[in-house]
């Protein structure tokens, strides 16, 4: 088991190296230069030239890549061309914001999705089954931005139940320690602010969690149906156990294995792909950070941002693989 984890971690190295080469090539293939975007549409050609020189952008690509990799090996993610900040420092709040949002989005998706899937399978072809699968179908095909704007309009503007933007109430800013606001407010003992932070999380978490929720519900249902038809469940049924016990105690564990895979992949996707939700709800997350960096041709930020997200994606999936052995002792690595 342990050696398996180590092996998998070693595999990370070529994967990330490949990623970085691909990313580097792509960003330099896009026309448009960072100096131009930094200085804006009213910059003189001379100013652009000077800045390019200052930033080392007129060196051959291979040299630029070499410099970047040399720093990276030393654990230095580089410096943003635009803000002049160390990326490792600058990125953390964005990453924390996205992790927090992703966590709650997945929590929502799992709790609702898994249970809806279980009940749909258990009461196959019932009204609940049809309705929840219809909702799942709508959920999978719903444009996130539309859902998010609707939520905002209904819950923030019309009902005024929940805030429309951001992670906290700017009038009473949260003192950051870890940048996970839920944790920071607890550490600070500010439970009023904890409440505010949770309220800020609700709408974006639901918007972001809707698609995974629908996918998980459908996955759980089909996998549950399969398990419920298996021999051992028939045995349990024959022993006269209550259906609830059968479903939740005996069947669920096995049914969750394929669901876990989906959860892992979806979590990874949300980490980098929450850009729409983050934009509409003004959530300062990593998706927006990278997206803006692409617009600004902030090469080091794009490279390091994608690298960090990719690393996390791989780590999450490694974690999921390790979880299998917990759920199903038959799986060995």
């Amino acid at each position: 088991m342990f050696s398996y984890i180590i092996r998998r971690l070693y595999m990370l190295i070529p994967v990330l190296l490949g990623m970085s080469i691909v990313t580097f090539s792509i960003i330099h293939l896009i026309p448009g230069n960072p100096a131009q975007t930094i200085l804006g549409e009213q910059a003189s050609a001379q100013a652009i030239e000077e800045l390019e020189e200052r930033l080392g952008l007129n060196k051959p690509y291979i040299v630029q890549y070499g410099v970047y990799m040399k720093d990276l090996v030393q654990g230095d993610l580089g410096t943003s061309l635009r803000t002049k900040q160390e990326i490792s420092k600058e990125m953390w709040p964005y990453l924390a914001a996205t992790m927090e949002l992703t966590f709650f989005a997945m929590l929502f998706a799992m709790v609702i999705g898994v249970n809806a899937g279980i009940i749909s399978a258990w009461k196959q072809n019932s009204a609940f089954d049809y309705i929840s699968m219809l909702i799942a179908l709508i959920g999978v095909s719903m444009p996130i931005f539309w859902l998010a704007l609707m939520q905002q309009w209904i819950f923030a503007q019309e009902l005024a139940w929940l805030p429309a933007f951001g992670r906290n109430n700017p009038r009473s800013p949260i003192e950051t320690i870890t940048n996970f606001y839920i944790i920071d407010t607890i550490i600070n003992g500010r439970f009023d602010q904890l409440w505010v932070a949770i309220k800020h999380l609700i709408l974006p978490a639901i918007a972001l969690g809707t698609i995974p929720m629908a996918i998980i519900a459908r996955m759980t249902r089909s996998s549950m149906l399969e398990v419920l038809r298996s021999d051992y469940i028939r045995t349990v049924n024959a022993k006269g156990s209550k259906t609830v016990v059968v479903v939740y105690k005996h069947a669920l564990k096995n049914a969750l294995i394929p669901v876990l895979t989906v959860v892992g992949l979806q979590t990874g996707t949300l980490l980098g792909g929450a850009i729409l939700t983050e934009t509409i709800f003004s959530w300062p997350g990593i998706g927006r950070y990278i997206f803006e960096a692409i617009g600004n041709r902030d090469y080091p930020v794009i490279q390091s941002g994608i690298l960090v997200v990719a690393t996390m994606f791989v780590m999450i999936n490694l974690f999921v693989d390790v979880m299998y052995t917990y759920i199903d002792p038959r799986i060995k690595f």
Partner: protein
Amino acid sequence: MFKKNYFLLALLLLVTIFIISACSSDDANAPVNDSNAENNGNNDVAEEPAAEPAEEQVLIFARGGDSVSLDYASVTDGESSRVTKQIYETLVEFDQDSFEYGEGLATDWSWDDDGLRFVFQLREGVEFHDGTDFNAEAVKVNFERWADAEHPFAFTDDNYVYSVYGTQFGGFKGDDSHVIDEINILGDFEIEFILNRPLGSFMQNMGMSYFAITSPAAFEEHGSKINENPVGTGPFKFVSWAKDDSIILDKNENYWQEGLPKLDRVIFQVIPDNSARLTALRSGEIDIMDGLSPDDIATVESDAAYQLFERSTNNVGYLGFHTEKEPFDNVLVRRAINHAVNKEALIGALYGGLAQSAKNAVPPGYLGYNDDIEEYEFNPEKAKELLTEAGFPDGFEFELWTMPVARPYMPNPERAAEALQADLADVGLTAKIVTMEWATYLEKTTLGEQDVFMLGWSGVNGDPDYFLANLLSADAIPGGNRTFYRNADVTRILDEAKTIVDPAIRDELYKEAQRLIHEDAPMVPLVHSVPILAGGANVKGYVAHPSTSEVLSFVELTN
């Protein structure tokens, strides 16, 4: 079994949270847009018609993007200067709604007739936010920092570049074209600038937010981290910055202007999505929002709970020709297209009526604006005649380039391009709309890969030179001049006007330049747009400055 219970517990907990949150809205974050809220405690006071100041003077200003840096001189984006304008001050300050300059950190100034020496008397008794004194030394340190890459506070190694300084003062120390020769301290509160040659826009430049004064002690203390630790003399001082979220500033209790600022705290909140920003305003979570889209103007206007703020126009949106490419090297073709474009329809459809039709490349109200120019009237027949005369009776095909992003002078470039395409089709011209990424667009148009393109220009210092020389002088190729218009007379006039300090003479020269440009028609000046902001009805004293950065010291909130 045990684990399962946890699972159910978590489910229960989550459901409970949802239910509770949906039923309660009584915390500090509850929107306060109920203007009839009971005013507890003051009921025995006679009701006055005038609104009284609200108890909590905290203003949230929402905008579409975050500041890049809080070191104003090393960046060029408006979102940065919008914030630094509150923290820092300049030697002269512009009026609230124009580029007329008056006293700032300097109380008096004079210049020699030859325009080579400017002397400023500085305000006494002003302190930076860190408690150190503002004086002539501070002014000298700041200007030398921008001019001299070797200066210890230039932070060259950390990629600080002061491009606006280079643009406005002809380059940097050691360049042939650099305008400022030396800066001498004549006393604690008296400083002189010796110039290599006269610069017409020198005083206007002094009011630009890019040339504000930072505490020298702060450079010592923070070094190249000055971009996150701004220390100025302004009405508000820096508190905190959460990237892409909010910047918080608090009242400077020691501000030199008695009784100002009126707000205790200003928060610049980033809300990237236009409609989300409007939602936040309507739910009462913010007080002022920038970048109201023209489609929403009517909605906001009809509601008494809100008000609109208009900025005086300070830009031009134009349709440019690559004047060295066929057939646009033919002046008849360029004039024909000038006649073919229906600007009024464009303004009605895309600007919510909030724009002026343009006839010059410089906005009205500027020194030297030539109002005698007779605009090319919208006349498709005349356009066709001119095209026939030019040898294109059946028209021709070309690419019409448009920007991919909304700009202050063009809130919806794609739709504008379609409108222009239709106008041109009416006179037999086939325009194929091409768009590309913003950075690429700027680069390619600088290199001259376009036939016809849309772009614009925004003013920074209220000086006509910034528009005309950057857009239409041969000196600005490659650069701001993307029409590749090279008229020796125009270039000569603009160069001359640059070095004259007397406004009356400059006025004449710029008018003459515009006359020549109008004849040659290197572009179709389309509009001078009026950017619009929306705010709650309880915001008093807010005046939007044409530069897009206004100081908020007079703003207050009422009940």
